[in-house]
């Protein structure tokens, strides 16, 4: 008989445990996450799950910047302490991660988010809790628009990437008919929004608009439809694996380029390798927001920094996506002064001007009216088996834009 008493007793015990686990701890200093010798920064990203390729590689780049800052003496006597959480690219988990960072770890600011949907799901929490948030690599426009005092990014948003592609196409002689092959997800849609808007202006006509599924292993249908439409140029808004499938099948069925990709396929050598060799990536161009290809002189300093702190990481384009945001955070922390408060930090962020962005092509400019710190990109292609920027034949956007 007595044994059943365990049920209500355990219920009470469970709730008491919940209460104890959840009891709000008083912050150690006047400002959350700041002590006499540390500044606590939260970080989140897909450290597990099917898209963890955008987790550690991106976060490690940002962590390298923070570690280098600490090794150089820190910021106004304080070292940056980073706490990482996993969001598995899932909105429910990203909210949990952010709530934990704010409620349990009492971070001063958060630098994270590589998946657009999962990152957007945290936006209202950051704003409600008044925690400064620097987006790591997610590109969905509505994460950083409309402008909010607490949300910033230094990764070019999807719409600016799309607009850049169309600007490049308009610079090509005798190009009137445009074919498109694209994914349908929030990442591709953001780019397509500006591509469609830019293509509505006179001079260019969309003659085919094909959807390629995520994880597709065959693009025959899309290629044949495009071929029948006889486009002068083809835009492919896909991830690298599917882009390679498309280029492989385009070559197989003699669909001629030029092919213009987004900054999702910036690593053209990797794309060519996946597509079956350099021949498959002939006449392929892609936007790029990093200063140069991996291994180029423009990336030497950033690559050395990454290798110093993460010698086991293979430098790849995504390794550098989080660095520019880290430089913006470090710069603003420094300018916020020794009496660090969130208000001072936000004021400093909003006055960022012409800040070198490390491996990114841009200079970071943030104002109270514009929290998208980097919009400038280049256009890359492959020549003689090497990735080259088209600076000599095509004018990229002004890096200070």
């Amino acid at each position: 008989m007595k044994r059943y008493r365990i049920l209500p007793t355990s219920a009470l015990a469970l709730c008491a445990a919940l209460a104890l686990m959840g009891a709000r701890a008083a912050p150690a200093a006047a400002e959350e996450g700041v002590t006499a010798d540390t500044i606590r920064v939260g970080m989140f990203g897909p450290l597990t799950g099917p898209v963890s390729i955008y987790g550690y590689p991106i976060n490690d780049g940002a962590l390298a910047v923070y570690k280098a800052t600490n090794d150089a003496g820190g910021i106004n006597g304080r070292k940056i302490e980073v706490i990482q959480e996993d969001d598995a690219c899932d909105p429910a988990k990203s909210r949990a991660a952010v709530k934990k960072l704010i409620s349990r770890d009492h971070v001063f600011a958060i630098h994270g988010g590589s998946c657009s949907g999962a990152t957007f799901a945290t936006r209202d929490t950051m704003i409600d809790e008044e925690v400064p948030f620097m987006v790591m690599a997610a590109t969905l426009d509505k994460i950083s628009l409309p402008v909010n005092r607490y949300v910033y990014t230094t990764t070019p948003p999807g719409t600016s990437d799309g607009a850049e592609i169309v600007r490049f196409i308009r610079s090509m002689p005798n190009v009137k008919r445009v074919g498109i092959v694209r994914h349908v997800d929030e990442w591709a849609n953001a780019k397509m929004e500006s591509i469609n808007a830019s293509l509505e202006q006179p001079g260019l006509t969309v003659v085919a608009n094909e959807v390629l599924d995520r994880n597709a292993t065959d693009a025959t249908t899309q290629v044949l439809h495009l071929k029948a439409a006889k486009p002068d140029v083809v835009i492919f808004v896909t991830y690298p694996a599917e882009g390679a499938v498309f280029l492989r099948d385009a070559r197989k069925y003699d669909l001629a380029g030029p092919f213009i990709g987004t900054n999702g396929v910036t690593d053209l050598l990797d794309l060519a390798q996946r597509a079956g060799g350099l021949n498959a990536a002939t006449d392929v161009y892609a936007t790029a927001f990093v200063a140069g290809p991996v291994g180029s002189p423009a990336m030497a300093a950033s690559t050395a920094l990454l290798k110093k702190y993460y010698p086991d990481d293979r430098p790849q384009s995504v390794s550098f996506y989080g660095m520019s945001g880290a430089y913006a955070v470090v710069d603003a922390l420094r300018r916020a002064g020794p009496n660090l408060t969130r208000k001072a930090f936000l004021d400093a962020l909003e006055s960022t001007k012409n800040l070198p962005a490390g491996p990114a092509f841009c200079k970071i400019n943030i104002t109270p009216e514009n929290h998208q710190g980097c919009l400038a990109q280049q256009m890359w292609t492959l020549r003689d088996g090497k990735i080259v920027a088209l600076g000599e034949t095509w004018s990229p956007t002004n890096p200070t834009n």
Partner: protein
Amino acid sequence: MERLPWLRRLFPFVLILALLAASQVMDNYLQYIVNLVLIYVIIGIGLNFLLGFAGQFAFAHAALMGIGAYTAALLTTRVGLSFWLALPLSGVVAAVIGAGAALPAMRMRRVYLALVTLAFAQLIIWVLINWNAVTLGTDGVDLRAPYLFGWRMRGDRNTFYIVLPVTVFLYWLARRVLESHVGRAFIAIRENEIVARSNGISVAWTKTLVFALSAFYAGIGGGLYALALGFIVPDSFGLGQLTLHFSIVVLGGMLSLYGAVIGAVVLTTLPEFLRDVQALQEIIYGLVLMVVILVMPQGIVGPLKRFGILPREVLARNWRRLERRG
């Protein structure tokens, strides 16, 4: 507890009061996790109707949850309907569509039914992604916090005050249904459709009912999920979500309402407990699932009932009184 009826009756109230008291000191993170647990209790109960009690091997539960979530979010955000109306409608819409999924179940069983309902689920996700004009596609939909008597129910604790009573009501409703002749009809068609039919049970009607009821729970769970997250995308209701639902039911224990509760608690909180061992998170999670399924074929409730920690669940009202009369 069978011998102490007052203790049994008191237990739910003790639990609810304890949860309410605990919510006063929980931080936002823990409160959010508790909200998710309660939502997955609803979803687990819904799937248990179908998979556990009625033995229908259907795979559309996550998609039906998505329908509920999108109904609640779209009706409030785009149509401007009150959340208090949109929430029950999210259950109703899911139930109507879920009843449609019962049609193949009239002719198919086991793996064939599983395949057809899986295709049905994929179709729903495809519609959520591609019907941009209505669902906003992969851009996702926001759901703003609702107002109650002029007070905006914003934040995790206010969400808890909405989720808790709904969960309690749906748990109570599930028990009433399962203790009625309807619940026994679910069991009958699971055991043998021919025998069920020969006992006067309309198999077609019972299947339609259990699919609709299960979908109603999935829909309400989805509506509350949209409220708890504030933003939903179609990808949230794919195979990963479905795997979670099945795991809740199988790990907690099929044929048991307690099983849905235990499964939801374990599987929602386990990834959070494993946050500090991120490198091993997926391995430990998988190992725990495998061990529980191998060692406890009836789920966690199996040994808990065997050792008297949980009371028996019998599908009849007042069965304890009838048992005492002998």
